[in-house]
């Protein structure tokens, strides 16, 4: 394969009534990702093409797009893995288009904010002026750690069939994060989060289609988080949920090890005082 064809969605809300497709054929290099192809187009063919990207290594979650009709991170998708000569690239569905491939993710962030995605500690005084670190056992960490890998790219929201039909539905990302924080032993805000997710457009509209877990580029399983959240909420409503004990604070070390002295410079600069 020497050439690759990109069918890219173009849309400028100031000029165009609806999105249209523009075709670009560019040289192919071994190991090239979809993002590399888009950057090539922007730098060499059409500098008006708009897309969002940053880290180029699947960490920042900026380059979420609909690639060959599946939501993926462009930087995380090698062209060879698609096994096609033609690649269709569109902006993420279930979000308004800002321009070309740039989706407006503000609804995702607003929903994410609504579930209070932060630690609500048991001991506010200790949290504000910590004397030592909170202890957490490995098993306690494993209850939520995979859900903490979320990069907020919005791919799960783009894949979710319920978000597609109900724009008020909270969606897999905020709900999975509601579970992530509620399952953390250092947090005591589960009740508040349950209140936010227990609405007509909240968690109970999830059909467990599992598309969110299929789409996640970080291996997070939001569908599992939603099921665990449902279980926690039902247990809580029946008063069967055990209130997690506040985490203990690590004991201060009895003897502090002496700090290792900074070694002397081995190279003496001319004119430096010895």
């Amino acid at each position, binding site marked *: 394969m020497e050439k690759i064809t990109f069918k890219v969605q173009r849309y400028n809300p100031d000029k165009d009534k609806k999105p249209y497709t523009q075709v670009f054929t560019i040289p192919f290099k071994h190991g090239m990702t979809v993002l590399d192809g888009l950057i090539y187009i922007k730098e060499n063919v059409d500098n008006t093409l708009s897309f969002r990207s940053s880290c180029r290594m699947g960490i920042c979650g900026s380059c979420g797009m609909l690639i060959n009709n599946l939501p993926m991170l462009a930087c995380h998708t090698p062209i060879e893995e698609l096994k096609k000569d033609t690649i269709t690239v569109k902006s993420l569905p279930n979000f308004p288009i800002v321009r070309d491939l740039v989706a407006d993710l503000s609804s995702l962030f607003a929903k994410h904010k609504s579930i209070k995605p932060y630690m609500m500690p048991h001991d506010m005084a200790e949290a504000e002026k910590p004397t030592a670190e909170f202890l957490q056992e490995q098993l306690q960490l494993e209850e939520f750690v995979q859900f903490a890998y979320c990069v907020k790219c919005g791919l799960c929201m783009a894949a979710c069939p*319920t978000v597609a*039909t*109900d724009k008020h539905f909270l969606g897999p990302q905020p709900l999975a994060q509601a579970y992530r924080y509620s399952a953390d032993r250092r947090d005591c805000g589960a009740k508040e989060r*349950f209140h936010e997710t227990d609405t*007509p*457009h909240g968690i*109970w*509209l999830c059909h467990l289609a599992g598309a969110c877990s299929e789409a996640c580029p970080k291996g997070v399983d939001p569908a599992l988080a939603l099921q665990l959240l449902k279980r926690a909420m*039902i247990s*809580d409503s029946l008063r069967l949920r055990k209130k997690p004990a506040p985490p203990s604070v690590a004991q201060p070390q009895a003897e502090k090890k002496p700090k290792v002295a900074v070694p002397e410079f081995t190279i003496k600069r001319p004119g430096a005082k010895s």
Partner: protein
Amino acid sequence: MREVHWKLLQYIAGIGIFFLVGYHLIFSHFQSDEITEWSSVSDRAANAGWLTFYVLILIFGIYHVLHGIRGIILEFSLPPSAVKVLDWSIVLIGVAVFGYAVYIPINGFIG
């Protein structure tokens, strides 16, 4: 009541339907020589146990169906004011259907 309670009742109704309809199928159709007609239902409903059984099937069935329909309608991005209208409409429909359907076993019980 919160959404979680309504959903919990939905699960309970689903489990209830599974066992009650299963019992009904086994004892009224597979193991019985009764003819499937109005008089058989009416005769069985003369017994207080069967009357309770039929009323429970009705309650579980109507609740499960209407709560499910509510979930489907909610997906049309209904605003909060419309959700209230929907909830009250569902309650009214449920009461009306129950009132109409419960007449048959009650009538059989009274004779």
